[in-house]
């Protein structure tokens, strides 16, 4: 049999390769790299959570669970979402446990889109959004966010891109890669936009607990008018440092959830049982588990902000997630050139802003999910590097 792209699915073959992947290949050829390019916590999952997964295996919990996930877990999720996000979901019909928020997003897009439907999303953004929309036969329509607005999403920018074919808006705040958060007024204005154009809102709030300067995350789920048209994505990867467990969930009104669940049930069956028991344990004392990690992230964020200012690298105030998005345009290099030359000169890895969309040009993403000692060394090296430019 002869191979060839014409025998493969065109809408997948045509997807661009991930910019992150390309950079990973460059970084992985080197030794001793200090990496600020990692999009996951450096902390290990709290021990009592890991222990709960081990215990579940010892008890023989190695079978399928119900498609939507353990009902105890879904109840705990509904309680948490009510307390933390301000929205009530029925654990029996409106909560689904997924394999990472990415599965939840994929299912949601497949449940909503007919070929040619447009989905608005904002850039710079997590690398998967555009491709996931395209994989669901939708048309990704990027809306730019800008450093001048602290990378918040403006309704003016949305209005310029909305069309009669627009089906949904996909948002992610606190944001990867910019660290941007939304104010309550932004949330209300975007909610009005969604209602005005009769759209579905998909809100990836995976970094919800990671907000700084004493702020508290404002969830789209807290807007009652959005109740019947909101798909909320959240999970355990970031705030509980549980990336490898691949544990997340979708909350959505029953009329959408029914279809999302159908995809999950045919495609996945159920999320990993041991991971679900770990997630259930994670719901027991969330504040206590997160507090030390959150304090560490905020101190590192503060350290980076002052250090970049001292070496003349401008940066907006990253008020959430664990990413800083400094502006390196003034050094006369493209984002990619900056990242590659920094790697070659100082063995420090940062991710070119363009990996997160074309408007990330002029920026690099520095993750501070890295031990303080590493951050200190990285900043010293970055300062030395920019002096040579």
């Amino acid at each position, binding site marked *: 049999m002869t191979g060839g792209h014409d025998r493969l699915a065109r809408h997948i073959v045509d997807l661009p390769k*991930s910019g*992150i992947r390309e*950079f*990973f290949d460059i*970084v*992985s050829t080197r030794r001793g*790299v200090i*990496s600020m*390019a*990692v*999009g*996951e916590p*450096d902390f290990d999952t709290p021990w009592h959570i890991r222990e709960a997964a081990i215990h579940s295996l010892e008890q023989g919990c190695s079978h399928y669970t119900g498609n939507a996930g353990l009902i105890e877990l879904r109840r705990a999720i509904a309680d948490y979402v009510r307390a933390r996000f301000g929205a009530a979901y029925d654990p029996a019909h409106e909560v689904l446990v997924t394999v990472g928020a990415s599965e939840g997003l994929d299912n949601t897009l497949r449940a909503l889109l007919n070929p040619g439907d447009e989905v608005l999303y904002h850039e710079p953004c*997590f*690398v*998967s959004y555009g491709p996931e929309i395209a994989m669901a036969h939708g048309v990704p329509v990027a809306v730019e966010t800008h450093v001048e607005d602290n990378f918040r999403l403006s309704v003016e920018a949305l209005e310029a891109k909305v069309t009669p074919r627009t089906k949904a808006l996909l948002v992610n705040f606190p944001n*990867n890669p910019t660290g941007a958060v939304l104010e309550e007024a932004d949330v209300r204005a975007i909610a009005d936009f969604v209602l005005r154009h009769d759209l579905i809102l998909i809100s990836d709030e995976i970094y919800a607990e990671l907000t700084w300067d004493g702020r508290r995350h404002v969830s789209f789920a807290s807007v009652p008018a959005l109740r019947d048209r909101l798909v909320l994505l959240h999970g355990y990867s970031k705030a509980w440092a549980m990336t490898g467990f691949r544990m997340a969930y979708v909350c959505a009104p029953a009329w959408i959830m029914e279809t999302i669940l159908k995809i999950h049930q045919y495609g996945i069956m159920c999320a990993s049982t041991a991971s679900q028991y770990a997630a259930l344990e994670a719901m027991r004392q969330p504040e206590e588990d997160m507090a030390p990690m959150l*304090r560490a992230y905020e*101190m*590192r964020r*503060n*350290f980076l*902000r*002052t*250090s970049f200012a001292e070496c003349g690298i401008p940066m907006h105030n990253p008020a959430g997630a664990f990413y800083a998005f400094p502006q390196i345009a003034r050094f006369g290099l493209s984002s990619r050139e900056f990242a590659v030359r920094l790697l070659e000169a100082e063995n420090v*890895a940062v*991710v070119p802003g363009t*990996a997160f969309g074309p408007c990330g040009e002029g920026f690099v993403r520095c993750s501070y999910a890295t031990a*303080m000692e590493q951050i*200190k060394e990285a900043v010293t090296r970055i300062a030395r590097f920019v002096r040579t430019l």
Partner: protein
Amino acid sequence: MVESLLEILRNNAKESPANMAKMLGVGVDEVEATIARLEQEGVIRGWQAIVNEDLLDGRHVTAVIEVRVTPEREGGFNRVAEQVSRFDEVDAVYLMSGGYDLLLFVSGESLLAVARFVSEKLATIHGVLSTATHFKLKTYKQSGVLMAKPGADARLAVTP
């Protein structure tokens, strides 16, 4: 700010005031003044290294000793506890609830030295009813620090 500052110092007492100022988002002067005040108030009682004694060549023995004491009409356990605390061999003294009264951490050059301290000095103090000595065999974790060297970062170097 004091709590955050102490958290940094508990983690790394050698952290520079300049770095702490950056982490806390305050001036260096404020950090230095706060540390000076905490030292003066006795909140910060000293600055020590966390040493893994198991890796040192010199012989070093640590024991945990449970001590039962007759409480006194005036001052309860204080007189005996303070007297015990003055010995150089004694690293730490705590008043405990439960089956005994004082818990001591004692170190010495050898088993014999510690045993001699218990029999000749500790047990003979007026008011000490009994002692139970447990010798430490190996340290796994101390002052919140695992004694095993951490493994390499298991994460991929670049992820989205």
